């Protein structure tokens, strides 16, 4: 009977094309607006590394100005570390399985052949980064620990860059010029785009592309590759030292630090280690504020950094209200539509259709309109997301509808249509057929 009902629904929709189009449009607009805001919210608030998000911890040490406002939560502490603190932790024996000290920079890539040089973002880090964040490789692998220790000229590149420079072929062992130096490629990583880009959630870059070049942190510092993210300082640098050395020894925060801690006990022990380190530093005049060190796993880290803002939540709520208004409009349109079907319903009742059969038949029609509204909504949401992409830089990874969102859009549209249709369909199925047989 279901296929029969679907056929009847399509026939009925064709009979009233304008009314049907209005209903599809009303639902489509509501779904489109809601899905646009909800998709952004969903992708912003998604877990970028669900299988490990509870064992990866961002490290915060409160080295800030003692005269600054008191710290109440992790959100009040700088999200980055000084170079010297990061380096200390990196070289220390800690309870962490792995640690990675890192920062973002940029270089000029000089391709062989005719292609002109171009800028590219790089991430200076340690070989632990790749295993820690489960970065997938298509060719080769990360450089080894010795390369970190030796400040070696090795790099890992991304698939996009490999496609561009080496036509997608295995480039492991080949050489690539960055600025004035050549680097040997040790591996090519597959498309890898954690969203949000949790390992470095600088404002404005939290949804940016992952870097296409990774090189040893030690080598990057040797070559004085400056950070391209936020650098915040509260104390003047030591004038007596050369500039670079003064910067590296300053209280400026510009590096990110992550630790992989397998158990809550390890995390507690690591936190103790941080506290003890800061206590030691206090002895030499640093860290003059109260002990405010924080470890935040990935999900906590996104909250600490307010990756999802209140504006996003308000927009989702507003668009949901708009969807409700659209559903209410659809109720009115469905009432008008089903009023015109009274005669047919009466005939079907006379021919033996029960109220239940009439109810289901018309509910299928409403659901069919819902599916069409969902498809229209997906189209409008796509346009909305494209608009966001054009308006706001750095949101390019939030402007796609993944299968979950597509299914949600259609499901929500069908649900909305059924909710809108329940009363009109119930009414038409309850009408006494006797008085309506002359209404066809």
């Amino acid at each position, binding site marked *: *009977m279901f296929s*029969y009902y679907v056929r009847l629904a399509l*026939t*009925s929709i*064709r*009979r009233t094309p304008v009314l049907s189009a209005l209903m599809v449009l009303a639902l489509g607009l509501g779904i489109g607006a809601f899905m646009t805001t909800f998709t952004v919210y969903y992708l912003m608030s998604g877990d970028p590394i669900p299988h490990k998000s509870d064992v990866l911890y961002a490290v915060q040490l409160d080295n800030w100005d003692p005269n600054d406002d008191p710290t109440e939560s992790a959100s009040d502490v700088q999200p980055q570390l000084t170079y010297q603190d990061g380096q200390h932790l990196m070289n220390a024996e800690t309870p962490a399985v792995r640690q990675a000290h890192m920062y973002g920079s940029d270089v000029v890539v000089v391709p062989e052949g005719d292609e002109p040089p171009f800028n590219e973002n790089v991430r200076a880090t340690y070989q632990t980064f790749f295993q820690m964040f489960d970065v997938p490789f298509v060719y080769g692998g990360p450089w080894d620990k010795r390369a970190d220790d030796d400040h070696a000229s090795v790099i890992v590149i991304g698939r996009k860059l490999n496609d561009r420079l080496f036509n997608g072929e295995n480039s492991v062992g080949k050489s690539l010029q960055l600025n004035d130096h050549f680097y040997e490629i040790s591996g090519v990583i597959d498309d890898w785009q954690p969203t949000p880009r949790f390992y470095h959630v600088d404002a404005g870059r939290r949804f940016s592309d992952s870097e296409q070049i990774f090189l040893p942190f030690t080598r990057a510092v040797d070559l004085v590759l400056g950070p391209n993210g936020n650098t915040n300082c509260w104390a003047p640098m030591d004038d007596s030292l050369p500039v670079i050395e003064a910067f590296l020894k300053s209280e400026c925060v510009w590096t990110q630090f992550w630790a992989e801690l397998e158990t809550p006990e390890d995390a507690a022990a690591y936190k103790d280690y941080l506290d003890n380190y800061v206590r030691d530093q206090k002895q030499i005049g640093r860290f003059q504020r109260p002990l405010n060190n924080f470890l935040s796993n990935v999900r906590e880290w996104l909250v600490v950094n307010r990756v999802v803002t209140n504006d996003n939540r308000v927009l989702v709520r507003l668009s949901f209200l708009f969807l409700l208004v659209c559903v209410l409009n659809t109720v009115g349109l469905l009432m008008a539509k089903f009023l015109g079907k009274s*005669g*047919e319903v*009466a*005939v*079907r*009742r*006379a*021919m*033996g*259709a*029960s*109220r*239940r*059969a009439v109810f289901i038949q018309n509910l299928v029609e409403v659901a069919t309109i819902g599916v069409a509204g969902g498809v229209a909504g997906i189209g409008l949401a796509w346009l909305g997301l494209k608009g966001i992409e054009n308006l706001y830089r750095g949101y390019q990874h939030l402007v796609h509808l993944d299968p979950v969102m597509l299914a949600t859009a259609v499901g929500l549209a069908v649900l909305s249509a059924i909710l809108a249709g329940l009363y009109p369909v119930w009414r038409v199925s309850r009408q*006494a*057929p*006797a008085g309506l*047989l*002359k209404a*066809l």
Partner: protein
Amino acid sequence: MLKMSKISKLYRTELVETHALRELDLHVDEGEFVAVTGPSGSGKTTFLNIAGLLESATSGLFELDGEDVSQLNDKQRSRIRNEKVGFIFQSFNLIPDLNLADNVDVPLRYRGWPGAERRKAVGDMLDLVGLGSRQNYLPSQLSGGQQQRVAIARALAGKPRFLLADEPTGNLDSEMAGAVMKLLESINQEGTTIVMVTHDPDLAHRADRNIHILDGRASDVMAAISPNVTPLPDREAARV
């Protein structure tokens, strides 16, 4: 086939109460062709709606095919309507968006017959009414007489034993009306019980028996004048 005892129907609004039927007693035997006549507003259509289980009586006893149907729920009434009753309406009441085959198919869908059986029944019925070659036509492409023949095919498709016709020739010219009446008579000859509401005395006289309804009561019973039909004694018992 149909037995109504002291059937009353009262319509209530906030301001008025209208007695459409007042303790109506009526009996139709299996195989009869009964014409129901009466002025407008006399209760003919209400009687027909109750007889076809489209409405419930306010009080009284109603048996259809030996089964008390006075207290059935909607699902049970729908099943009986589908299996035992066929309807023919004055304005044909074909569904305008469905082609002839799909219109005739409507009651069979609710019967739950398999597709092949439904298609055969639809084809047979449309052949019976002489429209077998126009299965894919829409009702709007047919004349009034042809539409009524399709409506008859639809009413007969599920092989009901009881046919209710409400002014089946009311919208037809005399030639088409005659053809439709002939069709109904031949259906009756095959054994289908027919109750037909009509204003036309000529058509009424072609039935086995006439029942006159006035002010909600079956106030008169006339034996049919058809020379081919001998009124049975119990048929004459249908009275107020």
